């Protein structure tokens, strides 16, 4: 079933990189008592592409997403959507941004209003963006069908649906305004594995058909590698590695990425077990934030947090120890 939902022309995958659709530069966010949740994060997302952000809890990935969605103002840095600073937008410009930039949140149980039917939830989003009654009536069944839900589900309430169905519904609601960028914040994390694969496939199909760009946030490196063109790895509020998904997976250049990969259960690599845990972001270590847990740390690591530098073309890491992970002298167990 190929229902055309949007007039957005789909870019063929081999289209040359043009001006990035979403471009964040030097984002900083400090909360209340000096918790530096995000420090100097720069990210770019091209039209029709997927940028994955991976990291553990407290690394700042969701705070970054909120700034990209203009749900939170950065203390420093700017976010451009299609060349325009989103945190300067007002009025109709802002409404237009919201239409073009949608979100699929982590927990559909709480993001869909329990007192609205699915149709009402989707219509609510469409009405806010000026879609008339006739168009809503025509498109809602199409949208449901497109995400693999029977159009009869329009009359259902969230409690009458399973987790996978709710996540499809949340995707349908996001697509209703014909967005160009969809931010998926842990969008498949709460799903059972057999259902997660269905939703991942659905997201990929929709991207192909509609030319969507995804900002895909997850703690699950295998999922991010699968769905993303590029991956950014965050630790303690910073991007420590960024590059093409397959390169980051196969040839990680930051010891934290190597650790994260080796910790992914079932992945056949020498397990690197870290001492300690994520430092308190209110009181980070001096220099590189990873040095207190890093098996490669040396004296110079306590001086400054290194900038991202290029390793192989288009692949960046912020570590003074410039060597492929396979050569890193990591303590391995089992």
């Amino acid at each position, binding site marked *: 079933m190929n229902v055309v939902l949007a007039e957005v022309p789909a870019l063929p995958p081999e289209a040359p990189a043009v001006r990035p659709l979403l471009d964040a530069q030097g984002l900083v966010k400090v909360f209340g008592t000096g918790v530096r949740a995000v420090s100097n994060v720069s990210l770019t997302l091209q039209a029709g592409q997927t940028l994955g952000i991976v990291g553990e*809890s407290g690394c700042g990935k969701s705070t970054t997403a909120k700034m990209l969605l203009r749900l939170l103002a950065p203390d420093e840095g700017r976010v451009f959507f299609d060349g325009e600073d989103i945190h300067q937008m007002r009025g109709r410009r802002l409404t237009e941004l919201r239409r073009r930039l949608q979100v699929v949140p982590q927990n559909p149980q709480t993001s869909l209003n329990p007192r609205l039917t699915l149709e009402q939830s989707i219509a609510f989003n469409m009405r806010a963006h000026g879609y008339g009654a006739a168009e809503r009536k025509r498109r809602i069944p199409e949208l449901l069908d497109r995400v693999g839900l029977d159009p009869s589900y329009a009359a259902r309430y969230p409690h009458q649906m399973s987790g996978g169905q709710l996540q499809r519904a949340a995707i349908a609601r996001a697509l209703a305004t014909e967005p160009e960028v969809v931010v998926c914040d842990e969008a498949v994390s709460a799903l059972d*594995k057999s259902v997660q694969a269905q939703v991942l496939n659905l997201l990929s199909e929709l991207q192909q058909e509609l030319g969507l760009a995804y900002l895909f946030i997850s703690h699950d490196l*295998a999922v991010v590698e699968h*769905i993303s063109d590029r991956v950014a790895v965050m630790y303690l509020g910073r991007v420590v590695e960024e590059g093409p998904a397959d390169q980051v997976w196969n040839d990680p250049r930051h010891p934290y990425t190597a650790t*994260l990969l080796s*910790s992914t259960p079932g992945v056949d690599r020498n397990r690197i077990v870290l001492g300690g845990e994520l430092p308190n972001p209110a009181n980070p270590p001096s220099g590189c934030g990873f040095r207190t847990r890093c098996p490669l740390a040396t004296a110079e690591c306590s001086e400054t947090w290194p900038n991202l530098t290029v390793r192989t073309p288009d692949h960046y890491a912020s570590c003074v120890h410039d060597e492929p992970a396979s050569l890193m002298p990591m303590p391995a167990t089992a």
Partner: protein
Amino acid sequence: MSSHLKVTDLHTTFGSGERAVNAVRGVDLEIEPGGTYVLLGESGSGKSVTARSILRLYQSGTTITGSVRLGDEELTALPERRMRQLRGLRIGMVPQDPTGALDPLRSIGSQLMEVLRVHQIAPDRASARKRAVELLDRVGIADPQRVIKARPHMLSGGMRQRAVIAIAIACNPDVLIADEPTTALDVTVQAAVIELFRELQQQSEMSLLMVTHDVGVAEELGGNVGVMYAGRLLETGPIREVLSAPKHPYTQGLLASLPMPGVARGHLQVIPGRPPLTGETSTGCAFADRCALAQESCRTAPPPLVEVGTGRQAACPVVNGTPVGRTATSEELSA
């Protein structure tokens, strides 16, 4: 001295009459002293209910039938008073969420010492305290003197889970039941906690019953696995063999649907439909509606577990007749 845990034909039903929910429908499992058994399944499959039923952690209104033997004792026949003495002493439990498992108002030390005192492992406060420090040290907490005084909110999630594990192993139980103990943790912390379970098992003859939805965690642990679906075991056997050559169409589909390097985007194999909710019933095999190989007979009665290799069983008459290691094709799975 450790004992053998043997569960036979376990059924757990919540409520009664029309509204009864059959969460567990005939589970058999066995763990040798020092052995590991992983119950693997998706949400609603009955894996946690199985674990909790072994400990009889349910109120009245729940019917548990079948046999649970620990050594030569039949647990289902024990009066509640005796069962209480046994929980924590001979069977330890690590729940999924360490935050909910700990009393937020009391120090870690007080909660750890309580177990030692209740089960009369430590004769007085001083020895309980000494033992508590040793236990925190044993679960890899670097600074036990500080942590013993800390309240749960002062610790990170990983530290809290270690503290809960310390409580669960305080009395050197024969069996440790861990219900998704790493699910709430970050992967790097999860890796360290799995490592801890391994070490603890090496140090003692403790057997481990691990409940998880995570195939990777199961693979890390080794031992035997039981794949649960809708309250029944669909496939059992040594974990590494089951994961490398699954025989039941559900296990095959589940493994094929995991995102792995080399699978093109949009081309993950999927199992159509969704797992049944807890208590959703069907007359035949609960997987039949999602199974490409289902036959008429699958819908009339649930197929029993039958031998499909050395130490391996699968509850599927169809796969039993097909060559070993055959994987359903994507066409079959998506049909």
